[in-house]
């Protein structure tokens, strides 16, 4: 949930505010995830003084899990370092991605470039087992607080404490990302982003370095997406290319469109609504499976795609700009005027 919020906020910053249609959100998300999984797998062995081994084997997977369950120092260190590196790598790839963005005048070419880049990423990581264990993915990335179970601290060593703590950590990061994007967008920088989005040529004749601004927004957005990838891998326990497909990217797009462009609160609402649909259909399919034997649960499971599309269509008809309206950049500049810039 928090992860979807971060991803939607990131996309909203790039497209809603910056006008950069990122169809490769899964690329930045997946890069963060794989960077995390690869780093964690290797770092755990280093910090726990194990001999280095092939990270794809079952033996290494079991070893990783046992380190995570018993060695808090190694686990947390690997967690933090992989997080920092993922964000950094995400920022770097974002910068690299802005390079074609500066050369295509029509921003939808950028969408195509990133869409293809994301496809290439999944294909390479699926078929080249030396990078990310191929189709199996890198598994055995335990919750960074799993070691709490081996401690003698009451309550915290129960089997439901550590997932809750990690959920809290994800929520905290989602909140941080919201504050970050909200501050970024309600500032002169936010004003600049919208100006470049609406008319880059006019913005450049007003002395705005359009290329630099586009690069900046891609760097920030993709760093956030990679952050989400890092959080996700530690939550789900595996980095698998199946989770980073283009259809995932489009789910994030639906969340953003649903919530409303250039509105950070809208992004959160969009993410919430879609997550809710996902959960409900999942619960529905499980229930049907349990009570109506012989009924194909996939019908309900896949109905989420139908519901998503239906919701999108209804929205595009009745509220094409999303649930929440685009918010005006409200810097304190308005307070200089008599009525303080209050909306009538």
């Amino acid at each position, binding site marked *: 949930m928090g992860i979807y919020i971060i991803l939607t906020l990131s996309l909203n910053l790039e497209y809603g505010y910056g006008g950069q249609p990122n169809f490769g959100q899964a690329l930045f998300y997946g890069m963060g995830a794989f960077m995390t999984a690869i780093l964690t797998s290797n770092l755990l062995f280093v910090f726990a003084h194990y001999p280095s081994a092939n990270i794809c084997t079952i033996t290494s997977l079991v070893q990783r899990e046992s380190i995570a369950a018993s060695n808090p120092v190694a686990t947390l260190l690997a967690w933090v370092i992989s997080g920092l590196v993922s964000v950094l790598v995400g920022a770097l790839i974002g910068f690299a991605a802005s390079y074609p963005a500066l050369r295509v005048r029509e921003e939808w070419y950028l969408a195509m470039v990133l869409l293809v880049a994301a496809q290439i990423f999944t294909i390479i990581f699926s078929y080249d087992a030396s990078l990310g264990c191929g189709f199996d993915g890198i598994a055995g990335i335990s919750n960074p607080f799993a070691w709490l179970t081996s401690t003698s601290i009451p309550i915290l060593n129960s089997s439901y404490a550590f997932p809750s703590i990690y959920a809290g950590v994800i929520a905290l990061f989602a909140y941080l990302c919201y504050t*970050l994007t909200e*501050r*970024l967008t309600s*500032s*002169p*920088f*936010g*004003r*600049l982003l*919208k*100006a470049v989005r*609406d*008319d880059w*040529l*006019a*913005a*450049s*004749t*007003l*002395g*705005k*370095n*359009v290329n630099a601004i586009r690069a*900046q*927004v891609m760097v*920030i957005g993709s760093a956030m997406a990679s952050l989400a990838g890092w959080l996700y891998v530690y939550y789900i326990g595996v980095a698998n290319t199946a989770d980073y497909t283009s259809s995932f990217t489009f789910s994030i797009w639906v969340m953003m469109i649903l919530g409303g462009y250039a509105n950070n609160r809208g992004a959160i609402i969009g993410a919430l609504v879609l997550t809710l649909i996902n959960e409900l259909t999942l619960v529905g399919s499980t229930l049907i499976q349990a009570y109506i034997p012989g009924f194909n649960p996939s019908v309900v499971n896949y109905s989420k795609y139908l519901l998503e599309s239906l919701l999108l269509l209804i929205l595009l008809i009745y509220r094409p700009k999303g649930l929440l309206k*685009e918010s*005006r*950049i409200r*810097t*304190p*500049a*308005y*307070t*200089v*005027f008599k009525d303080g*810039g209050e*909306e009538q």
Partner: protein
Amino acid sequence: MSEWVLETQSISKSYGGVKAVDQVTLRVKKGSVTALIGPNGSGKSTLFNIISGVDKPDSGRILISEKDVTGYPPHKLFQMGVYRTFQNPRLFFGMSVLENTLLTVKSPGDNPLAALLASKWLKHELNIAEQAKEILEMFSLSEVYKNGASEISGGQIKLLQLAMVLMANPRLALLDEPIAGVSPHLVPIIFNALLRIREQGKTLFIIEHRLHELFEVADWVYVMGRGKLIASGKPSDIVSNDMVKEEYLGSSMV
């Protein structure tokens, strides 16, 4: 410091074999109001595009205060003090009048890292907002400051363009038809606004078809016809120039 803010040297530009601008050499004096006139399609806007960096010339040089700026991108030229308005106003129509005005000024909060810390840009933001308020009042726009730029009238849009020029405080303002297309009763108001900008010591280079009004304020006039510079002189000389009359068919001169 040179008395010439702008010099173009043999600027040429062709589009698909048509010479839109052909060997144009002209100079704009510091602090002057210089007019650029000519019939539609004579290359005036193309010349402005080249001077403001929107287009690149095929040949020739552009100097701003004696510095060669040929081939500079628009944002660099803006930083050199060149401000440009468009014939079809290119404002940020999704944003408010105030935001449009503030966008003409560089803020420390334009940098994303500084933007995170309000302390880095708040003081500057309030300063420029004060300044914007004064300028908007001067142009009778303070009532609509928080309206979207798409919600104000055509005349107000023209006024906002000029308010933005004043806010940007450029060395040279290239105004592409600042009066055209507004209702007649607004013409004197916009002209007054132009005069205000001139009072601030700005150099104005204006494309305009309303010659009567323009010639009252212009110090110097350049005339273009079919991409070439065909005449230049004081407004009084231009009015009596036969070649100019012929090019214009005398229509708006009488």
